[in-house]
């Protein structure tokens, strides 16, 4: 896919979002869509780590929650305007994740998953037990200013506007990710993922690019965290809990992690499915656990992978029929 084509598709996606916004009748449904879009951004973050590094994170809720807490703390201390605060929070998350990444991407892939779980849960425990400003287990409210980027808060928080903002952010993040993965950086990280030893032989340093992918995925997750606190005006240790990481990972795997768009599909499917379950939602975790197992056993590359295979098979059969006609 060329950059121009990606850009054109992004514009198309933006128009599609506007259509969804205009055609959705109820604001509660739009609210659910907004949540789905925010988790789609989150899933993109977890997905890029899996796709480019081949590493599974069970602890990305750390960056999701940290963005909210960072924002909440800066805003309540009134250090700087909210627009700058967002930038500072994202840069801080990127730097922090890069440093953590330098340590943990060196361990074997399986231990990596266990480590991310442990680090994430450590921060969760810290947040529940903290006192003072962050409110411990009760969480803290995030006091967004009256105007953000020159838009009145009352306007910004209208369900339709908020949905469109989240959707635009999703499209932008996807575009930037697709662009980054097309650069030399994307090629290098893929080479390291496929065979670290060979990558080293041809003179590539292997730890730094992998830590950079980890940082990139953390920043994308942080963007989702910021959108979530804008949506709810609240952040609590629940945002940091490992089950949040788990649900997002589930979206990534069910959607399909081998393509860039799989995580988005996974997030949308998850929220639609959850809405359909309705009364059975108390057992949603068991149902999602079973769905996860089913997807891995029958279609390890997720829904997107299954669709691609069906399409390929369809076009092959079409071709054969065409040939036999002659």
């Amino acid at each position: 896919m060329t950059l121009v084509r990606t850009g054109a598709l992004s514009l198309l996606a933006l128009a599609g979002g506007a259509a969804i916004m205009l055609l959705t009748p109820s604001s509660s449904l739009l609210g659910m869509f907004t949540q789905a879009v925010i988790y789609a951004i989150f899933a993109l973050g977890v997905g890029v780590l899996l796709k480019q590094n081949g590493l599974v994170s069970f602890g990305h809720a750390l960056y999701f929650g940290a963005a909210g807490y960072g924002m909440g703390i800066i805003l309540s201390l009134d250090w700087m305007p909210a627009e700058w605060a967002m930038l500072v929070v994202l840069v801080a998350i990127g730097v922090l994740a890069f440093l953590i990444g330098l340590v943990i991407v060196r361990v074997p892939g399986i231990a990596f998953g266990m480590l991310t779980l442990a680090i994430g849960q450590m921060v969760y425990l810290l947040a529940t037990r903290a006192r003072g400003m962050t409110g411990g287990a009760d969480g803290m409210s995030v006091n967004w200013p009256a105007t953000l980027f020159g838009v009145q808060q009352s306007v910004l928080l209208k369900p339709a506007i908020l949905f469109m903002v989240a959707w635009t952010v999703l499209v932008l993040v996807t575009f930037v990710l697709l662009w980054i993965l097309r650069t030399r950086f994307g090629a290098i990280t893929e080479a390291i993922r496929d065979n670290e030893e060979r990558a080293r032989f041809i003179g590539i340093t292997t730890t730094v690019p992998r830590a950079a992918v980890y940082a990139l995925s953390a920043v994308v997750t942080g963007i989702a965290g910021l959108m979530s606190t804008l949506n709810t005006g609240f952040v609590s240790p629940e945002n940091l809990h490992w089950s949040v990481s788990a649900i997002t990972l589930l979206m990534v795997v069910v959607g399909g992690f081998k393509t860039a768009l799989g995580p988005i599909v996974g997030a949308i499917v998850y929220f639609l499915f959850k809405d359909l379950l309705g009364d059975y939602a108390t057992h949603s975790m068991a149902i999602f656990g079973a769905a996860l197992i089913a997807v891995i056993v029958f279609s390890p590359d997720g829904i997107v992978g299954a669709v691609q295979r069906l399409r390929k098979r369809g076009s092959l059969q079409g071709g054969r029929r065409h040939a036999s006609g002659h």
Partner: protein
Amino acid sequence: MLTINLFNGLVYGALLIVMSSGLALIYGLRRVVNFAHGALYMLGAYIGFSVAQYSNFWVALVAAPAAMAVVGVLLDRYGFRLLQDREPLNVMLVTFGLLLILEDLVVFIWGKSNYSLFTPELLAFPVNLFGNEVPAYRIGVIVVGAVVALGLTLWLRYSRMGLFVRAASTDPVTTSMQGVNTDALSAGVVGLGSALAGLAGVVAAPFLSLSPHMSSDVLIDSFVVVVIGGLGSLAGAFIAALLLGMMQAIGAVYLPEVSVLLPFIFMIAILIWKPSGLAGSRT
């Protein structure tokens, strides 16, 4: 104050030995990080609780591990064996899905309320240890940890089956070419590992309360233990489990504010120094 904390650290370390040796055994043979291990621990505790309601603690101490052994054998036969050619990542995610299902199952059967199992009468007396009164039951937990550690070491080193397990952990293909039935062996080892998770659950039930959240804390600590110890290394896991228990105990005295962070700081320090863990050489 310090002695009693060191003692409690030893108790928790013993529990972690039982938990993480199961994880290490299963990893050694199947190369699977079993996320469902925490759920098996929890299931063991709840089954132990229910059995103890109808009979007594000692029956529960046998019944729960036995039940988990059956679950483990089935898990290996219908899970790990069928998925053995898949990427380790896929199998890990399957066990993770299993964890979600089993946690929901526990809530479905036993509800969300907390329970606690009474200390068995035989061990419900205080013991004087260096001038501190400690419950005899906790000494019993340390004994269980020691017996498991010693038993597994002797079994792996001196029995014929232990030899097969060591061989299959190093090279499953060559081992099966030599005529060892590695499938049956794996089923046995996964059964044993799961039984150890169930044992840890019953043993923990009288001093840690039963709740649907009990699995994640111990699972995460066991993960830290096996990563620090070196994946698949039993000796490494034993040492790391004791170190972790002690570290939390000492941290609770001197650094109460950050005691929850100590295991993780310790883990990161070890991994910077040695990415494959204390006793790890294989990847």
